[in-house]
């Protein structure tokens, strides 16, 4: 029997009839059409299904949709305002941190959550924050560079706007 689930995704409220065993990832991809979060391993090892729940990265493939009704879910589609990219997304493009792109939504969301908490992370802190996101193309160095550059860009913007 289907159950009614109320989800708040990217600032919008949705009421969805779904199975009790539906994961958040299935609802996002199949019922809301938000295909940014990917399914790769499906068992919580790779992080390609990462979304933010109240600003913190979680694995949508291991989250029951019914369990995340009180959270504000942010997917990669909800990150940018209009067509302007966020500093993290820009840096990923500039530094060549995207190759096949399958891990990128998860990487960008994990990096965004990290930089919000800690705008100037050390290399070790970036590694720790991204330990749950696997990438099989880049070898990680470009991603680490991109996250560091995004942090610098964000703190420059913050100091620039406060100085005005």
């Amino acid at each position, binding site marked *: 029997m289907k*159950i009614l689930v109320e989800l708040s995704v990217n600032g919008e409220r949705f009421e969805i009839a779904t*199975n*009790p*065993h*539906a*994961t958040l990832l*299935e609802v996002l991809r199949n019922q809301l059409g938000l295909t940014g979060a990917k*399914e790769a391993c*499906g*068992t*919580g*090892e790779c*992080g390609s299904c*990462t979304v933010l*729940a109240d600003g*913190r*990265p*979680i*694995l949508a*493939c*291991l*989250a*029951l949709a*019914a*369990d995340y009704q009180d959270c504000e879910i942010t997917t990669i589609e909800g990150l940018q305002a209009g067509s302007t990219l966020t500093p993290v997304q820009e840096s990923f493009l500039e530094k060549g941190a995207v190759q096949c792109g399958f891990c990128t939504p998860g990487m960008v969301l*994990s990096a965004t*959550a990290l930089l919000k908490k800690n705008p100037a992370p050390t290399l070790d802190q970036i*590694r*720790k*924050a*991204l*330990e*749950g*996101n696997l990438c099989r193309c880049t070898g990680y160095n470009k991603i680490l560079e991109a996250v560091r550059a995004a942090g610098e860009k964000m703190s420059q913007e913050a100091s620039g706007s406060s100085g005005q």
Partner: protein
Amino acid sequence: MQLPRFDLKRPSSFHEAVRLLVEYGNAAKISAGGTDLLPRMKYRIAAPATVISLKRIPVSEPFQDSEGNLHVHALVRLSDAASSNLVRTNAPALADAALAVGSEQIRNMGTLGGNVCLEPRCHYYNQSHAYQFMDPCFKRGGNLCYLVPKGNRCWALACSDTVPALIGLRAAAVVQSGDREYTIPVEELFTGDPVRPLCLGETDLITDIVVPAARPRTAVVFRKLSPRGGIDFATVNCAVMLKLSEDREACEDAIIAIGAVSGKPMRAGQAEKNLLGRKIAPDVIHEAAGRTASEIRPSMRCDCSISYLRKCIESLTQAALETAYQRASSGDGVKPD
């Protein structure tokens, strides 16, 4: 990968959850964060008819009672346990252990209580059985072991990171059982049988973890060794508690707990006893680490040899003892890494 069908119950209190457990019995499984149960369900090695999700139960912040004991709610996320100032100052080993679990995402979902009750793992058991038509092993209700074909028992490993730390801290679990509540030391929670790892009754739930007040000249240190340093379950983990005498030279009390090498976390009782009353020096620490390695009997496993495991246990224990001595003697015994 899709989850098998089940009926979802979402109680809003531990009382209600225990009532549901009584009602549904063996057909129900508890999901706190879901990061341990859901992968097993996707692999088709667990297929409960009912899942009781504890997500709606309100979680209280860690707090200290009037005697200085630290109370941590069982449903506190591992990331919150790791970043809580109260936990970091009063039980740094617990914060370090919580931070060593899985990945950022898993720590944001998984709970402390869930990690304590982590199902023992085995490379043969923890993989997809959706398209495998082999006879079930002991852990799947069968009568054989893939790892030890002629064996008569299960060899899965208790891999929790927080449990050795909690044993080092002499922590206790508050358990809700029907209408009554009881307290049991975390160390006594485990049977050693990976098929039925916990001594808890079928309808018991851990509601709180209580860490006794930090003692003077005492340090508890947690160390973990894993293949990649991130995401992985521990190859070996270790927690060491060292209490020094008033002149800060001799050992007054010691715990050496080794996890992830057998069906339950192990204590190196002989090595601990041998440390008591002795003046701590590099050769004494070296001897204690050596004794620990020869005393602990690691279970057979398929990813590394017993002799390698013994070397890991020795070097990990030595490193933990050295750090514990440093912290206990310098007086900042309760500071985290």
